[in-house]
């Protein structure tokens, strides 16, 4: 494990430029949009873009700007439920693993650049219908990749850049990681207490 400091000589500008990131946020918010505010006032699900989807993609495409690369967060705990924050100390990759990941990321970077250019700098200003029309011009393989990354960014651990402050987890009532505290036996077996399930 090591600290996620930027590798020597890395480019602090990031992989995508400002305009590309703006388009990316709009793309993710179109694929995995924000939810309506509920009647009981519980927090709404944020859009995958607004919750940090661009930071997620930037961290992934720029993983090798860091040493160790930001591919696998460390462990065993985040510190949110006891223990220390081991997540932010990313794990080392072997040389062969790094080769595979570099190749994968090179391909993705190319796909993102091509697709974001095709969507255009005005994509973020379009209404939902127009956005969908533009999306239909993209390579379906890219749309699938972008949807996967949008889901990962929104519902994965915030250490990877998305899911700002765990807002998406809060909105779907998911605690996220729980170790080392975990759940008590009673919380596992009788989550509704002595009342039983709400039939």
């Amino acid at each position: 494990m090591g600290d996620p400091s930027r590798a020597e000589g890395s480019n602090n500008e990031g992989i995508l430029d400002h305009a590309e990131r703006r388009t990316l946020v709009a793309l993710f918010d179109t694929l995995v949009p924000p939810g309506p505010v509920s009647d009981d006032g519980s927090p709404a699900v944020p859009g995958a873009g607004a919750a940090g989807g661009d930071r997620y993609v930037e961290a992934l495409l720029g993983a090798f700007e860091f040493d160790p690369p930001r591919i696998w967060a460390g462990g065993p705990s985040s510190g949110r439920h006891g223990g220390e924050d081991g997540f932010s100390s990313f794990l080392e990759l072997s040389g062969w693993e790094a080769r595979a990941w570099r190749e994968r990321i090179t391909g993705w970077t190319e796909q993102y650049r091509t697709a974001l250019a095709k969507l255009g700098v005005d994509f973020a200003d379009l209404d939902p219908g127009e956005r969908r029309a533009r999306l239909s011009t993209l390579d379906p393989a890219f749309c699938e990749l972008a949807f996967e990354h949008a889901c990962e960014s929104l519902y994965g651990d915030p250490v990877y850049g998305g899911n700002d402050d765990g807002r998406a987890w809060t909105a779907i009532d998911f605690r996220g990681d729980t170790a080392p505290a975990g759940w008590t036996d009673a919380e596992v077996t009788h989550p509704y207490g002595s009342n039983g399930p709400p039939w």
Partner: protein
Amino acid sequence: MVTDCDAVIIGSGPGGATAAHTLTRAGWDVVVLEKGRNHLLELEAPYGPLGHMSNDEIKFTRRHVLGPDPMLEPRSFRRDESDGDRLYVGDVNNLPSTVGGGGVHADGKLPRFREDDFALLSTKGAIDGADVIDWPISYADLEPYYTEAERLIGVAGEETNPFAAWRSGPYPMPPGADMFGATLTAPAAERLGLHPYRAPTGANSIPYDGRPACVNCGFCGYYGCPVEAKGDPVALLRAALGSGRCRIIPEALAVGVTRSRNGRTATGVRYLDLSVGPGTGDPPEREIRSRYVVLAGGAFETPRLLLRDDLGNSSDQVGRNLMVHFQTLTAGAFPFRVFGASRGRSVTHVHDDHIVGDDAQDAAARAAGLPWIRGGLVEHGGAAGPIQEALIYGPGEHHPVAMVDSSLRERLWVFTMQGEDLARPDNRIDLDPNLRDAWGGPAGRMTWSPHRHELVASAHIGPILEEVLRNAGAEWAVTSTSPPIGPDAARHPMGLPPASRHIVGTARMGHRAEDSVVDAEGRLWDCPNVVICDSSVFCTSTGYGPTLTLVALAARTTRLLAGTPLSGAGPGSDRR
């Protein structure tokens, strides 16, 4: 012959770890070659946890942290020859490739087989188009090793299953906490005449063997345990290392077994040192010389190694009779959260009734023109994490609403039946004619399709499982299978290859060199100082998870090798 150690063990999963433990206890010096990385434990005393395991859906389910990376080690799949050389390339039935193997992220339901599982031909009879056989050993032969395996791994369980085989001792630990969903489905199953019980599980319910109790973290199946409550196989590896007689070499890909001039005696193992490269040329090839070689790469990689090395295959049986579990997946959504995806050990209850069968099951078999059908263990369990759920819904406005509603995660409860798969010679692992791994070795190819037996059993049992879910309060219940069948199979979210990670039978054991790969003690007929210690040697798949049985078999094989058989062992153990 000058040797570096008594035995080289290829693979550090539950099978290899058991071999390392048994042999070091018998005073042997062993080297374990593991092609994957080490994320499990320090390899220097006191062999503590490395702390890499965590509750992290991205790392474990999206980014291959435990390997293998399909870009480095692709596999191919086809259903049969009519699919051409291959139908699919990528992750085919991948178990982790890492120190600890698949044991690291299994949720560890560890039932024993029953007596008749070892005598399927004798008790049930033949079925056309399948190669139904008896094992060359009996349950009685294995029973003392089952007891040892449960103690070494640390299995928590209870003796309430009316169909269980006899046992010589109690489980070492009581069961852990029941998951809420199971408190609904187990009584419902009972109301419908079934016999659910608390699953024997390789996770500590109380502090055991220096490791803590499970904290019910909710990230069990597919995740490494962040608190080290799972015993399989870390307990065995730590004990082996602690003996001072075991060296584990991670990132060491075995590529061949060196042999004497007549080919009948193994002299060691050649491996690629993957800790070197890329960028500095190919990984260097190294060799370790030993008196014995133990193959424990799992039922996919062991036949792949034997085939690429042209070893042990005079019977033409290597790779054949591959069996996986044909999974029947019956899911039911409840009107309230059942917490199956977030709290507990993934599965806490199971039932065996469809293995044992009843009059209705016999009638279903007869109606389909089959002499008998057998299902498998039904796991009462939860669903997957939020990323997995998010992916199922597809993009669009409905997405956030569906996620809050969570009918496919927190409100979902899933029965997974690990259906018995009958052996067929054409279901096999072989070498893909074109595909190569990153180091130029031929990739393994799986050819597999179900026998009609599996389809008929699934079609009969699926509706019963749906009824149980509805009886338990589910609003709806629906059944699918893995691998998928029918016209929409290609669009199935779990993919075309079988999702079951229970894979067995590719180097079966037998009484005769003509139709088996190893003898009843796990030794290659063609090269008797090579033994197999993984589920390749299974003769039938049964409807139970393979791991406890493969660990018991590995303990037996290596104890017989070292001359330390357990008392109570039956026929076979005295034939050395």
